């Protein structure tokens, strides 16, 4: 048994270095960062399907190995606990994306439509299918329960107007990973003036999401 599990470490490292130079440990860190960012950002962020797929691969690989192990083995128990923890982060991440898709579906699809070739998609193929289906189902439902009983001139509903957009002006908490200079802070009221701040590495801030949104995708700041 210990062979089956001891081999893991080296196996995984090889697998990984072929497609990416990340170690499995770094991969898990990436997943956790993506999870927290997604949890706290008001809008749907870029999909990280690469990370998700790699993590899934690691999990299935490890689970396959555990299948071969006798019951009651001390190491297997530890591995199972770790798998459960990673699986929790992974599903929580995917769940928070689905919740946002449900909340903002017309806008998400609109953004997907206006996306230019070569530009990275916000949605993974599965999420795209989910969003489209959700849109169709909502529309059918609204028609069936209400719209078809309305006067003819009121029978259409513009989903883009009916569903609120993500509020990019919300405040977020963030931690700075790479020093940033001259971040413009817009004033709250007309009698205040705008000013710039420098974000020092390791410092934590509370400010509007809109100001720092580009820094999240570049990985310079982490939402907390």
């Amino acid at each position, binding site marked *: 048994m210990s062979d089956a599990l001891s081999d893991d470490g080296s196996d995984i490292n090889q697998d990984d270095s072929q497609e990416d130079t990340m170690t499995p440990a770094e991969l898990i860190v990436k997943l956790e960062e993506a999870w927290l960012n997604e949890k706290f950002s008001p809008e749907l962020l870029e999909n990280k399907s690469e990370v998700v797929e790699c993590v899934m691969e690691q999990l299935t690989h490890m689970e396959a190995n555990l299948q071969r192990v006798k019951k009651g083995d*001390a190491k297997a128990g530890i591995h199972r606990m*770790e798998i459960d923890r990673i699986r929790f982060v992974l599903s929580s991440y995917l769940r928070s994306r689905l919740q946002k898709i449900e909340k903002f579906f017309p806008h998400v699809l609109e953004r997907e439509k206006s996306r230019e070739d070569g530009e990275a998609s916000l949605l993974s193929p599965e999420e795209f299918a989910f969003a489209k289906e959700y849109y169709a189902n909502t529309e059918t439902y609204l028609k069936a329960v209400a719209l078809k009983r309305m006067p003819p001139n009121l029978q259409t509903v513009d989903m883009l107007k009916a569903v609120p*957009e993500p509020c990019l002006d919300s405040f977020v908490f963030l931690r700075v990973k790479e020093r940033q200079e001259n971040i413009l802070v817009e004033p709250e009221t007309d009698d205040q003036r705008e000013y710039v701040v420098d974000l020092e590495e390791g410092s934590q801030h509370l400010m509007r999401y809109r100001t720092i949104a580009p820094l999240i995708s570049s990985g310079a700041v982490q939402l907390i």
Partner: protein
Amino acid sequence: MDPAEVEFLAEKEPVTVIPNFSLDKVYLIGGDLGPFNPGLPVDVPVWLALNLKQRQRCRIVPPAWMDVEKLEELRDLERREEAFSPVPSPYYMELTKLLLNYASDNIPKADEIRTLVKDIWDTRIAKLRLSADSFISQMEAHAKLDNLTLMEINTVRVFLLDSLNCMYKLRSNLQPDICNCDFFFFISY
């Protein structure tokens, strides 16, 4: 974020344990652990330490900062200073709670530590409330929050962010074209 999720993150912090069993190196996805030898201290994440402890397979060595004298100093500093002083661990509250709940027999003066950490926490939360209050009343657009821990941020997060959003909407409704965020979700199921 659920407080349990913050605790989940805290459980990744390393802690030293003294195992009473032997086991080869364990190659976890998140990094290698061990080898475990009876009586030899080894660093493991808190989630594993607590599991081993509950099965009586190890003794937990409390982190260096979990010490009555050091915590008393921190408490006095925290009470003296107006700003937030640096904390010994970004998860000091969660770790204290976890370790004291499951391994209080391994930690000398557990009750005193519990009280001290609670005192530090209360002082900090009081400061946090004060600064949140002045943040809102002065209508600031940016705040620096160094030395605040995730759990502390989390206790004010929902209420503070929601109130800020609400106030923003009320204010921007005076100048209608600024915000498209609607007050209500019109199609609610």
